[in-house]
């Protein structure tokens, strides 16, 4: 069991119960040796029973192209929401037809609403 998994399980088993996370990925999946680690963190949180929403913005939208990013597929299996910034996708000529069927194009208003929820923990990467 990894430290991340241990921490997530510890949190899940805490009296506070499952949390709600909005994880915002702005880096592309080629961004460096740690690329993908943030999405793997999202997977760990979802596996631990937390509500997870992943918002892909800027170069992060490339993780939602096609269905070849394993973390996106796993997150979808776990019921996590995959949100893709409509502006960033349009800037990169990505239409809904090129994106994973698990992804939803959304505007920044959806993210503003999510961040205003009392129990939502937002993290930007």
């Amino acid at each position, binding site marked *: 069991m990894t430290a991340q998994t241990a921490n997530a399980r510890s949190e899940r088993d805490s009296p506070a119960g499952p949390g709600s996370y909005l994880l915002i990925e*702005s880096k592309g999946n080629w961004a460096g040796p740690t690329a993908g680690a943030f999405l793997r963190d999202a997977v760990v949180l979802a596996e631990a029973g937390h509500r997870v929403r992943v918002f892909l913005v800027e170069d992060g939208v490339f993780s939602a192209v096609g269905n070849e990013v394993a973390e996106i597929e796993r997150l979808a299996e776990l019921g996590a929401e995959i949100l893709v910034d409509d502006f960033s996708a349009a800037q990169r000529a990505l239409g809904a037809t090129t994106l994973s069927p698990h992804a939803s194009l959304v505007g920044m208003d959806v993210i503003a609403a999510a961040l205003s929820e009392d129990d939502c923990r937002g993290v930007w990467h």
Partner: protein
Amino acid sequence: MAGTMERRMWDLLLILTTAPHSSDVVTSALRLSQAVLDRGGSVRVWACGYATMMTQDTFGDTKLPNTRDPEGYYPSPSAVVQRMITDGEGRFGWISCTACTEERGSTHHIPQVRHRSPLRLATTVTSAKQTLYLGGA
């Protein structure tokens, strides 16, 4: 009897450390800020590092003329921030980190910008319901 001072809580704090034009992050920060303002919420931006350059008064109100669109209006970064502060009517604030400002010589800010020492960053974080750190030095 001395009264107690109630600290204002902001809905969102964005700690912006990346340099303008280094990526899309400043655009994202401003878009997210505007979306929160459109919902009636409040946003404060803490500009660190080269992000402190955005609010220099030496930019003037517009960017250099676009030769392909000479009649077009292209506001400068400081004009965009200034307009958001004005339109926000107290719900949008911009803080410039004094250490980063002085280190870069970016000391001539538009008057609406507040100046804070990095020693007050923790206090600023505790005055927000939600904080996002938009990194990149």
